């Protein structure tokens, strides 16, 4: 049955060192609060899975939590590079990062196969791309038509972490807007952690279609309002585009980044602390200026 608990306890209990962890979210509903808690608890040797690793994976990679990254697009959306990710790949700083990359369609097919309990997914994909030489993809023939197709291995994370707008008191999870690949990642995983904006008596919307994950597929739920900042939770918060732009400056320099992590994550007790720290304009200036 679904456990309700503090994010600190949930991460401590359910995310072991060395786990493969998918903190999914396609620009929307990115589980930043959970990522910060992983950093605070100094989890190590993680294999991070994610179609669109963005700032939260940049942070996890920058502090050295990750050993390996499986992904399909690693940038700061609309801004540019993920500098900590680049530093890890280009200079092995702070430690080497093993990477495995796919296309979005390939990653999506991998999660769908994982959620379906199938060994592999099939798609018309990767054709003519050099990705074929560097990643786990095979060519197969359709047994009925002979068409050449791509096969990709199922992706089954040890732990999936997602952020949703709502859970009801039994633990049924409702999320809406851009739904990304969260449902597939959760159903492919052994353990499912959900942070939510709000716990409600009844999920918003039109009855049972609103539930994206039934309570018995969810391991633990923690309520963390604004837990997707600087991403957003449609209906609750808006995307903090200014933060995404500022991240370029914060993450570009190793020392500024280290000071930012210290001030905004490690010195904060929880995500509420981080959110209050953001309101202190002088803190960011001190971090950037040294």
């Amino acid at each position, binding site marked *: 049955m679904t456990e309700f608990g503090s994010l600190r306890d949930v991460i401590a209990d359910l995310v072991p060192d060395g786990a493969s962890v998918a903190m999914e979210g*396609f*620009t*929307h509903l990115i589980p930043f609060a959970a990522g910060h808690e992983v950093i605070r608890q100094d989890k190590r040797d993680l294999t991070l899975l994610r*179609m*669109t690793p963005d700032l939260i994976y940049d942070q996890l990679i920058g502090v050295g939590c990750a050993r390996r990254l499986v*992904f*399909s*697009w*690693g*940038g700061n*959306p*609309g*801004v540019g*590079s*993920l500098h900590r*990710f*680049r530093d890890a*790949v*280009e200079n092995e700083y702070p430690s080497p990062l093993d990477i495995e*990359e*796919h*296309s*979005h*369609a390939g990653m*999506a*097919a991998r*999660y*769908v196969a994982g959620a379906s309990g199938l060994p592999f997914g099939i*798609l*018309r*994909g*990767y*054709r*003519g*791309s*050099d*990705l074929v030489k*560097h990643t786990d993809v095979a060519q197969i023939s359709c047994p009925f038509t002979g068409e*050449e197709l791509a096969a990709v291995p199922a992706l089954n994370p040890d732990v999936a972490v997602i952020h949703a707008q709502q859970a009801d008191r039994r633990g049924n999870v409702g999320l809406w*807007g*851009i*739904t*990304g*690949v969260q*449902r*597939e990642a959760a159903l492919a995983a052994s353990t499912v952690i959900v942070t939510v904006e709000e716990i409600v008596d009844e999920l918003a919307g039109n009855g049972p279609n609103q539930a994206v994950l039934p309570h018995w597929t969810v391991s633990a739920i923690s309520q963390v309002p604004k837990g997707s900042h600087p991403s*957003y939770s*449609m209906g609750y918060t*808006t*995307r903090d*585009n*200014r933060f*995404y732009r500022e991240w370029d400056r914060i993450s570009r320099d190793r020392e500024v980044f280290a000071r930012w992590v210290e001030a905004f994550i490690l010195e904060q007790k929880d995500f509420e602390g981080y959110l209050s720290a953001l309101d202190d304009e002088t803190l960011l200036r001190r971090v950037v200026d040294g």
Partner: protein
Amino acid sequence: MGKGRAGANGYTSDEMMTVTASRFLRNGQVCFVGIGLPSEAANLARLTHAPEVVLIYESGTIGTAPNILPLSIGDGELAEHADLVVGVPEVFSYWLQAGRVDVGFLTAAQIDRFGNLNTTVIGGYQSPEVRLPGAGGAPEIASLAREVIVMLRHSKRAFVPEVDFITSVGFGPNGEGRAGHHGKGPTVVITDLGVLEPHPETNELMLVALHPGMEVARVRDETGWDLRVDPDLRVNQPPTADELGVLRDLKARTEQAHSG
């Protein structure tokens, strides 16, 4: 004519590029849109000559009509103004893979003479000089959309004889063509200097049109291979007052919304 400041003509080379690219999108087409330059041009088309164009973003927003340009591919603006929003596996399977997309609208860090696109690495794959974001949706868009429109700024660093990594295929490393692909590949490449199209026999990109005031020598100079020039070289029409007005309004609204 600088890229950011309006020159004597009253428009910038970036504006000329965006306006030209927007004209290639026809009313009623279904277009899978990449973020950045393509998104700007596709929305300009929607707000001018192609009000019935169907814009699809890989975040699963289908038939979207944003009031401002999204900063990311998954801004709330795209979801709020969409006909429907589907999950990411669905957008690639039911919509792109099933053949419902007329035009893929892409950009890249590098393009080569045969229209192959690189968004993965500059340098070697194992120890790259520059690690770029990677593939995203582009390999399947490039393969499966009925045709592909590419836009990027012209420079020798971007227009190379061979890309360091083929993320998304155009006509293959030797221009061999499109066997096995459902779409016909890049039909046009729009830059801040002019327009390139693949030669019908060799598939090599050649200069077919210049923006007003641009010279062939300059384009050849900014291209990393011996660029061929179409004997019937055209000069593009400058932006109309309407096109410029709509584009500038869109960008001003966007700037205001994103600086908040």
